[in-house]
C-alpha cells in the first residue's frame, strides 16, 4: 500500500534565512522569514497554509507557538521531535496528511538563533539517567564512541574522518550562503583541538543561527504552481534506541533499516541517486550513513571518502552546500537537507556546485545520538 505514496506529493517552495549569523533575531523571526521565502516561491501565502509541521529544541509546544506566531490555524499539525531528523519525518507526515485530504498546503519549518542567542541555550530536559552520571559530553561523546568502535573494527582512521570535514568545506567554498568558507586541510583537522577522542572540533558541526522552510502540496496541484515541482518518491523512519549505550552495535545505525525501506517505496536503489544529503553533525555520521544506506559496503566508507571521494569532483556528491560541518548547524539540521536537495534537483544551485543533470536526491536525517534515522528520496517529474 505504501507504494501509493510515491510521487503523490511535491515540494513547491523552499526558503532559508539567517544562515550562519543573524544577530538581533529571535528563532521565530528567522523561521518566519524562511517560511515567507518558501511560500513566495510557491506562489502561496500564509493564509493558504492548513498543515503545519515544526519542531524546535526551545519550545515545549512547537506547533502551538509557531502557529500563533505565523497566524496560522492549521487543520493538521505535527510536532514530532526526533531531534535533527524531525523535518525529514515531517515530510512523510505531511505526505500522509495531504493524501488523506486533511490539509491542502503543508508548511514544514524550523528556526534557531543558537549562535547569536548564546547563553540562552536550553538544556534538554530529556537527559538519559543511566548515562548522565558518567558525564558524557553530549552529543559529541556518543559519536566519539561510535567512531572509536568503527576505527577498531574496520581500520578506519582519523584521516578518513578528516576527509569528510575537508570535503564539506570544499562544497561550502562553492556555496555563497555557507557560513564557514575558509581554507581547511586534512592536517588542520588532525591537529585541531580534541573534544572527545577521536573527534576534534573540526569533526564537529558548527553552532550557528539559521532557519529553513519547505512547502508541500499534492502532486496534481504542484504542476500549476510557479516552481518546478520536486516529488516525494519514498521515505522511512527508523528508531532502535534513545541512548547511545543502548546500541547493540555502534557501527550500524538504524539507517540500515530506514534506507532500504525508503528505497523500496521509491522503487530505486543507491546506484540511482545523483546527489546525497547526509546529516553530518559529526564526521563519523557520514561514514556510517554511506555504509548503512548502501552507497558502499560496511567498513569500506573510509576508502570511499578518501582522496576527495565525496568532495566536488569526487565519486559521489555528498552535502553539496557544505552540510552541518560548514554550511550551518543551528541545532536541528534536517530541514536544510531538504532545501538543498530541492535546489539541486531544480538545477538552481550556483554553477560550480550544481550537480549536472541531477534527477534523484536522497536526504538522510539523524537525530539525538544516532537515535533516530529518517530517509527521504526526492525526484524531478521525469522520475515519477
Amino acid at each position: 500500500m505504501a507504494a501509493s505514496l510515491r510521487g503523490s506529493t511535491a515540494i513547491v517552495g523552499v526558503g532559508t534565512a539567517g544562515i550562519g549569523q543573524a544577530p538581533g533575531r529571535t528563532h521565530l523571526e528567522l523561521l518566519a522569514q524562511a517560511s515567507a521565502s518558501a511560500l513566495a516561491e510557491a506562489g502561496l501565502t500564509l493564509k493558504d497554509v492548513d498543515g503545519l509541521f515544526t519542531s524546535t529544541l526551545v519550545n515545549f509546544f512547537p506547533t502551538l507557538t509557531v502557529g500563533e506566531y505565523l497566524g496560522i490555524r492549521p487543520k493538521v499539525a505535527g510536532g514530532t521531535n526526533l531531534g535533527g531528523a524531525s523535518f525529514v519525518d515531517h515530510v512523510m507526515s505531511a505526505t500522509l496528511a495531504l493524501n488523506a485530504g486533511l490539509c491542502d498546503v503543508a508548511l514544514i519549518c524550523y528556526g534557531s538563533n543558537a549562535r547569536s542567542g548564546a547563553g540562552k541555550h536550553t538544556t534538554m530536559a530529556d537527559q538519559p539517567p543511566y548515562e548522565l552520571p558518567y558525564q558524557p559530553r553530549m552529543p559529541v561523546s556518543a559519536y566519539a564512541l561510535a567512531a572509536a568502535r568503527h576505527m577498531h573494527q574496520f581500520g578506519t582512521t582519523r584521516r578518513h574522518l578528516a576527509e569528510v570535514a575537508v570535503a564539506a568545506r570544499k562544497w561550502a567554498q562553492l556555496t555563497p550562503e555557507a557560513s564557514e568558507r575558509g581554507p581547511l586541510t586534512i592536517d588542520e583537522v588532525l591537529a585541531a583541538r580534541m573534544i572527545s577522542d577521536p573527534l576534534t572540533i573540526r569533526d564537529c558541526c558548527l553552532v550557528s543561527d539559521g532557519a529553513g522552510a519547505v512547502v508541500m502540496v499534492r502532486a496534481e496541484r504542484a504542476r500549476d504552481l510557479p516552481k518546478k515541482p520536486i516529488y516525494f518518491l519514498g521515505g522511512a523512519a527508523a528508531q532502535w534506541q534513545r541512548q547511545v549505550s543502548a546500541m547493540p552495535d555502534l557501527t550500524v545505525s538504524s539507517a540500515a533499516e530506514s534506507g532500504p525501506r525508503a528505497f523500496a517505496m521509491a522503487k530505486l536503489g543507491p546506484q540511482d541517486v545523483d546527489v546525497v544529503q547526509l546529516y553530518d553533525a559529526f564526521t563519523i555520521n557520514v561514514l556510517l550513513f554511506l555504509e548503512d544506506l548502501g552507497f558502499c559496503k560496511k567498513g569500506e566508507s573510509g576508502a570511499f571518502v578518501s582522496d576527495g571521494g565525496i568532495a566536488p569532483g569526487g565519486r559521489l556528491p555528498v552535502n553539496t552546500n557544505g552540510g552541518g560541518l560548514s554550511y550551518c548547524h543551528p541545532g536541528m539540521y534536517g530541514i536544510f537537507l531538504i532545501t538543498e536537495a530541492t535546489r539541486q534537483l531544480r538545477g538552481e544551485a550556483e554553477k560550480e556546485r550544481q550537480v549536472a543533470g541531477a534527477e534523484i536526491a536522497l536526504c538522510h536525517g539523524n537525530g539525538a545520538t544516532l537515535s533516530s534515522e529518517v530517509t527521504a528520496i526526492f525526484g524531478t517529474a521525469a522520475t515519477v
Partner: protein
Amino acid sequence: MASEGAGPDATFREYLQQGRFMIQKCAKCGAFIFYPRLLCTECGTSDLTWQAASGSGTVYSTTTVRRRAEQGGDYNVAVIALQEGPHMMSKVVDIPSADVAIGMLVRAAIDQTEGGPLVVFRKDA
C-alpha cells in the same frame, strides 16, 4: 501487576546503596536487561527477576572527554559489554583514559560519588 512500592528504577538504586550491582533477568525468556525496566525488552512480559551482576565486562568502546586541568582534567567515558550481554555506559577508572582500550577486560566496582553510589569499572588484573 502492583503499581505501588519501589519500582525497578528505585530497586536498582536501593541495591546500589547496599553496595550491590544487580541486573534484571527475564524469568520467561532468560534475557538479561539493563538498564532496569518494568517489561522485558525481548519478550514483553513483566516477569523480571533480580540477580547479582557477574561484574565482568569488556570495553566495547571508549572516549576521553577533554577538559581543562583546572576543571578536573580529562576523563574516561566508555561503553561496557557486560558478560551477561547488555551494554552500559560507565567509565574505567584508576588508569589514564588514553590507556583504556577496546577489548580490555574490566571488572565492576561501586564507587561513592557526589551523586551517590555509581557503577564504575577497573581493568581486570
